[in-house]
């Protein structure tokens, strides 16, 4: 209950003795899921046409050389042997070496993942802050033109392809108005190397604005509309009338009592939305030349860089699962009725 900073102190401190056990159980399931996802993706890649050497070598190279390459990457082995090696490595957190980068996949991903995550989390944060307050406000204003306008606004941006909005946003804010940089994650030749220097600098934040805005506008409809519906539902609850009957100020009823409860389904929906959101990042990354993992996946797949594509896919899956877990735990913190 540390999360509840709203000034409420009267809580039963031993309310959630099972949280640790629950998280542990979930993590266990997650590991199994990851192994399943890995198996699936492994098999998918082996059924892919075109062996990786095709795009790796200059076409003018003799056939024997291609054979040598296949052997170097273990691609001449039987499927089962390849699978055993792959899974064995995976259990040691070894995704293998990228055919293209000649570099451990984990390091390639490590370079790219933070950029993807930060962009996504910023966009989600943006969408959720605006969406939660906006949704609550729309529920309050229900039946008015303002509400219709709010609904239409959020749905229009949910209906617009992000890459298209991205192009428009670049044209407007970067090219015409020149307010923000259009491409990349930081200025050319930016020196910073530590996490703080990279991700907390003003330069980075300026680059973050447009892509995060584009992604955020797309995400916006989910929290806004769910919050609105949920608020409408909650506002007809007896405890809201009770809060009024207690003579509490209207704003307190709206935000302390109604919004707090209405938030619960928003959190759940958000968790399920992450899966769609993190995949959709690819488009934003392409449009804004954002050096994220999504672009890497696209390249790895087109070049049949199995280890990198597999690794990225597995990592993205893991991110989705971790986000789901976080949302569930968050939900439990928000709703005291949930016990594990």
């Amino acid at each position, binding site marked *: 209950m540390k999360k509840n900073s709203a000034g409420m102190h009267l809580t039963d401190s031993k309310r959630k003795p099972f949280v640790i056990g629950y998280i542990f159980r979930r993590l266990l399931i997650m590991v199994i899921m990851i192994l399943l996802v890995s198996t699936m993706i492994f098999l998918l890649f082996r059924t892919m046409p075109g062996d990786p050497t095709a795009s790796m070598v200059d076409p003018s190279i003799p056939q024997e*050389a291609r054979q040598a390459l296949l052997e170097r990457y273990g691609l001449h082995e039987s499927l089962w042997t390849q699978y055993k090696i792959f899974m064995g490595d995976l259990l040691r957190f070894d995704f293998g070496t990228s055919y*293209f980068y000649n570099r451990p996949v984990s390091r390639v991903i490590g370079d790219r993942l933070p950029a993807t995550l930060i962009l996504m989390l910023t966009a989600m944060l943006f969408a959720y802050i605006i969406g939660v307050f906006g949704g609550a406000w729309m529920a309050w204003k229900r039946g008015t033109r303002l509400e219709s306008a709010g609904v239409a606004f959020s749905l229009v941006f949910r209906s617009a392809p992000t890459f298209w909005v991205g192009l428009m946003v670049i044209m407007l804010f970067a090219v015409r108005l020149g307010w923000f940089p*259009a491409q990349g994650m930081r200025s050319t030749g930016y020196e910073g190397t530590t996490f703080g220097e990279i991700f907390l600098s003003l330069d980075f934040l300026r680059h973050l604005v447009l892509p995060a805005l584009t992604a955020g506008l797309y995400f916006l409809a989910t929290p806004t509309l769910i919050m609105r519906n949920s608020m409408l539902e909650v506002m007809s609850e007896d405890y809201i009338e009770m809060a009024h009957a207690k003579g509490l100020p209207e704003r307190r009823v709206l935000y302390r009592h109604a919004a707090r409860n209405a938030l619960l389904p928003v959190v759940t929906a958000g968790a399920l939305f992450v899966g769609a959101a993190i995949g959709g990042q690819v488009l934003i990354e392409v449009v804004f030349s954002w050096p994220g993992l999504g672009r890497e996946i696209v390249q790895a797949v087109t070049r049949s860089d199995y280890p990198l594509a597999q690794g990225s896919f597995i990592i993205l899956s893991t991110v989705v699962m971790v986000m789901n877990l976080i949302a569930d735990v968050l939900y439990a913190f928000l709703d005291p009725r949930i016990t594990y």
Partner: protein
Amino acid sequence: MKKMVILVVLLTATMVVFGGGRAEQDAADAEMGALVPELTLRSSLPESNLVNYEMAQELSDELAKLGVTLNAQPTDFSVLLDVIYGEEMDYDAYTIGWSGRVERLDPDMFIYSINHSSNANPGGNNTSRYVNPEFDALADAQRSEMDIAARREYVWEAQRILAEDVPRITLYSRSNVQTYNHERFTGLENMSGEGLFNEWSPMVMEAIGERTVPVVASNVNITNLNPFGARSVYDWRNLRLIYDKLVRLSVDVEPTPWAATSWEVVDDTTIDVTLREGMNFHDGRPVTPEDVKFSYEAFMSLPDSYFAAFVQPIDSVELLGNNVIRFNMEYAYAPFITTTLTQIPILPKHIWEGIGDYTQYYNEHPVGSGPFEFVRFRNGEELVATKYEDYFHPVNIDGFVFKIYASPEGVLTDLELGVVDMVSYDLIPAHINQIKDNDGGRYSHLTITEAPDIGFFYIGMNNNRPPFNNKAFRVALSYLVDYDYALDVLLDGYGSRGGAGLVINAANEFWHNPEVPIHNTYNPERARQILAEAGFTWDSQGRMRMPLE
């Protein structure tokens, strides 16, 4: 509910109309030849090569008018390579291209490698499966002829045969049109097949304004900093500025002594090279003949490196003392100086000798002896290099930043915003036009450069299979290609004309045979005529049939 039902019915009806095919009976016209089989043309995807994609679709439309079904199937590049280099050799036709890398100025690649029958087997570069003994003899002869004028005779004659046999139809060559910011930099060299970001520009270009480190834009990511792992021209564009080479091709594509002060052709299979004195690697250690020997031998030990073809003729490398390095060849190899010596980088032996498998080394911080010193590389973002103060040749800029974009569109934006100073790839026609139009003076700071390219893009045909095994069919096909559409419309004129069997174009002045007549006009009537003359017929349904044996 009613509305939903209607919707379902309507949509289903649409699908039936949309997806339903016509199944017509084959009313075999008995006495005619076999039907021309249904063909598949594997073309590029629009995003990898829009012109090839378009031309393939157009050819499909043209053949349909002649009663031949040709499915132009856009195919991913790696899949395409897998198909045309695969064991099964199972394909009819495809579109692809050969890039005009500087070393391909030597005719060996375009004459021997892609047309000789010895390469017509699976995995070989003769993906047209073209076999002509008369041609083979010429191709062999030019290879071992060390006298350049005599060699030219062979090459010219070989071109004549190709133009007649039409093993492939060249669609077009694309010019190297690039751009740079003339308000910041001057003195750039534009090289054929290389563009602006070649081996020379970074050394000779000069800063005008305050910015002394140009930002070079790329729309393709760098994958590798390891010379043994590097597989694309994009990797090499940077590595060749960090690692030095014995010989460099000058702006006029003349071999110029570089890290080597001179070379001597002792006999057809022996070449002596003298290494320049006083050079150091970026870590301060001297460059020695041992490093050179090590580098060449390392590449010789890897059959699948980017340079495998170039070191293949080398038998051994000897050190003769006095900085002289001797290359013993297995057979006479005419292009040795222009290709091999200009391509193989000199690596520091003290760094590499301890590494087991060279190809698996990431080489996080490359150390070479070239004009630029590696600073850092951020995957997907940028590679930064700084001027190497100790270099024997003057360098005017303080370094460069190789900045990576996800799309040409992004580069154009940053060109306009002044973030980028020059590009390292060929601009697409649309962007050339936009920069030239200079709407509202937005691109006034940019200069467009143009150089012809010796590479070419073509429609490949499997000469082993009907109907492509019929020479008349191939020739007729070359009349169905709208070369004007490719050059004037799709390329906006930034390129040169293709033609039937053209492999060495006019940009390669020395080797190109101007006297060979090349069919390069669109004339469907003539095509029909050629086919009719060759015995092709059309049945009652308008389908084309093969000539009777």
